């Protein structure tokens, strides 16, 4: 694996270490947030969710923020999303996945009046393969479609927006449907691939509209050579609103070129990486969004200074003709209390925009919504973390932090309009030019026994003080979760997660606040493993126990669902 990607994963791990949760299989790559409640995770569809870990600092969600570790994420309007993932599966294998929301009628339909029928439940489907290497060459194919979060009365509304069908399969009008295939070449020095495909995606915008976009085709080429990683993408995106007889087309080239710190460099005190992310667009007709000057060039620099084992500084700095963004942090592990792993840290984030490569305008019924705000934001956070082991099977830890943010990005809504069941908004992206302050605390207990059991009980709270009615989302104030992974006889895995989060509230997408009530949820994965043959058969139930509810304005119901996965490695 490329060293830059390695570094990205290590960075992600260090960020994620406090949020240990069970290894519940996600229904799709990028949908892990559905099984998380260690913060505020509100799902509107597979293509839009608010994802903010408690204690992350600031009031923005993670997917709103650009960082170098998201260079392979998809830019869906102004969010960076793993799904629909074009990351080639790394292990040569064949896999198939299918599932359904629970609650179809089947023979109950013979006993039920049509007006009393429950809403139709919808499936997911995924299949694909990656071949073994043949003289370094490999081929891959993947088809995946998630029909969850799509079937309520909004389905009828969306059907009128497009001409003909808008997915590979079925009549559920899923929020995304994707297929691609391609070739790659891998050896000790090079990892390269070219993938091509077509996909249907409903993108959620600042006005709260779902916009259908068909990528026809989308081509992505990647090459990691030595310490350089390059990605080039060509997209021909077709936009339409059949009801209004509008159509448009965007031809886009985007990607990145990155030089990352090599192995020798990583052993040194100073580690430097640098890169350039870019987008060039050419719009024709009605596209609904716009990028100023039809381009975004984003050079960035990453630096780590590690003068000792205990002390490290990390800095990321990016700048272009419109925006700048700095993310830096310092961590110090107190040496005299080494066994207790007490870490003091601080982080700072400043910039003119959370996502400097996103579009700058949205066009909505004659109105131009500015997606950039004057001024800058500044986020400061200080934290202390401690993680201790009481015996060789139990440990506990805590993390406390204080953060303050000035100039947080928000939306200044001028007016709301109703269209069918939907509420849309006019206005502009704006700032909260006053300080928002918060204290956070998390406490966890971990229990483990050989490779048979990993158990974590985790709880956290966050108290935020600021102009809360101007927050896009008031995050949950507390959560508690109990997570366990059992591995019986090294071949049968049971992972489950029982958790509760308190209420969250959307303030700015509807006239009145949209409250997402807190609840308990239970997820579980049961997996038969066959290590000798590289086979895995798994069944997963998601969102059990809790009430089925809509978690975002203009979103769809998050329902209990079950899916099964069969995989065979070559």
């Amino acid at each position: 694996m490329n060293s830059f990607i390695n570094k990205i994963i290590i960075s992600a791990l260090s960020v994620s270490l406090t949020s240990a949760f069970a290894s519940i299989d996600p229904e799709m790559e990028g949908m892990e947030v559905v099984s998380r409640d260690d913060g505020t995770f509100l799902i509107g569809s597979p293509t839009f969710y608010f994802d903010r870990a408690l204690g992350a600092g600031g009031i923005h969600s993670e997917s709103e923020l650009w960082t170098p570790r998201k260079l392979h994420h998809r830019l869906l309007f102004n969010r960076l999303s793993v799904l629909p993932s074009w990351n080639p599966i790394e292990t040569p294998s064949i896999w198939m996945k299918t599932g359904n929301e629970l609650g179809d009628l089947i023979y109950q339909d013979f006993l039920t009046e049509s007006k009393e029928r429950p809403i139709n439940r919808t499936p997911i489907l995924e299949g694909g393969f990656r071949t073994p290497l043949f003289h370094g060459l490999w081929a891959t194919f993947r088809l995946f479609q998630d029909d969850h979060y799509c079937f309520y009365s909004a389905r009828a509304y969306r059907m009128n927006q497009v001409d003909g069908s808008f997915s590979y399969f079925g009549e559920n009008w899923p929020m995304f449907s994707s297929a691609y295939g391609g070739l790659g070449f891998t050896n000790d020095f090079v990892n390269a691939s070219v993938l091509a495909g077509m996909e249907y995606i409903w993108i959620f915008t600042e006005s709260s509209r779902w916009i259908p976009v068909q990528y026809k085709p989308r081509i992505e080429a990647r090459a990691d050579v030595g310490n350089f990683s390059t990605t080039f993408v060509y997209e021909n995106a077709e936009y339409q609103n059949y009801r209004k007889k509008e159509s448009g087309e965007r031809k886009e080239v985007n990607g990145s070129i990155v030089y990352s710190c090599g192995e020798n460099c990583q052993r040194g005190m100073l580690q430097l990486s640098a890169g350039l992310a870019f987008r060039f667009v050419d719009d024709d007709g009605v596209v609904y969004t716009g990028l100023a000057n039809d381009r975004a060039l984003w050079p960035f620099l990453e630096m780590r200074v590690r003068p000792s084992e205990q002390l490290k500084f990390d800095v990321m700095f990016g700048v272009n003709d419109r925006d700048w963004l700095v993310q830096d942090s310092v961590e110090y592990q107190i040496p005299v209390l080494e066994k207790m792993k007490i870490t003091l840290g601080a982080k700072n984030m400043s910039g003119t925009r959370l996502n400097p490569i996103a579009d700058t305008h949205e066009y909505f019924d004659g109105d131009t919504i500015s997606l950039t705000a004057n001024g800058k934001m500044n986020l400061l956070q200080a934290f202390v973390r401690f993680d201790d082991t009481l015996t060789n099977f139990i440990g506990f830890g805590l993390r406390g932090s204080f953060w303050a943010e000035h100039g947080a990005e928000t939306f200044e809504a001028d007016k709301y309009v109703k269209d069918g069941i939907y509420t849309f908004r006019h206005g502009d992206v704006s700032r909260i030019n006053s300080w928002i302050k918060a204290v956070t605390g998390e406490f966890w207990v971990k229990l483990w026994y050989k490779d048979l059991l990993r158990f974590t009980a985790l709880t956290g709270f966050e108290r935020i003080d600021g102009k809360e009615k101007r927050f896009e989302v008031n995050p949950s104030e507390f959560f508690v979760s109990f997570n366990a992974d059992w591995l019986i006889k090294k071949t049968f895995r049971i992972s489950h997660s029982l958790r509760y989060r308190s209420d969250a509230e959307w303030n700015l997408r509807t006239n009145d606040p949209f409250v997402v009530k807190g609840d308990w949820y239970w997820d579980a994965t049961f997996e038969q493993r066959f290590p000798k043959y590289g086979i895995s058969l798994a069944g997963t139930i998601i969102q059990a126990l809790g009430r089925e509810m809509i978690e975002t304005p203009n979103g769809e119901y998050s329902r209990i669902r079950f899916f099964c996965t069969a995989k065979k490695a070559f």
Partner: protein
Amino acid sequence: MKKFITILTLGLVSLLHAEDSFEFRNDSVAVKEDISFSHFSVFLEGGEIYPMGDLMDAVENALYGGIGVHYTYWDNVDGVVMFQYTYFKPRTDIYYDGVHQFMGRVGADWKWPVIRPVVLGAGFTCSWTRADAEQIHYEKRGGTLTDNETEFGWYARISLPVFKFKEYSAGFHVSWEQLWTLPKRSNMLYAGLTLERSIW
């Protein structure tokens, strides 16, 4: 602690690469101790399905048949995969004759020595249904089944082999199946015969 962090790290890596989680193949002890597929057999089975509870008013009893495989998973536990077919006729006034139903099941059979030769089993089931209808009247009762409908559920099963000759065996089985339907869960009882041939 280092081991725990390693395990935790592996867990997080598997989260970040949830679609690519074949790390278990790299556990040499697990590979060495893996006795799966040391025995493998195929079986035919058939019998009758008895709808239970509310479902007794919805559909008639139906015959079913199918194929399956047993494979060694642990010493006293076999994995099982089954595919079955049945055709349900409605009891109520439905505008078509019946419904095709295909069932797929994945589970495990436990050969508990205490009650041998009785075998206990359980697992997940998936039923795919489609009405035997030429016209679609979605608003009528049963109309949803004119499109493909699928529902998952679970099953529990007791098997009693009563006959064994060389690589062949035969016996009875009874299964309880629950599909996670709405507005109520759907329960059915299966009873039938199994004819099995050991392949290796």
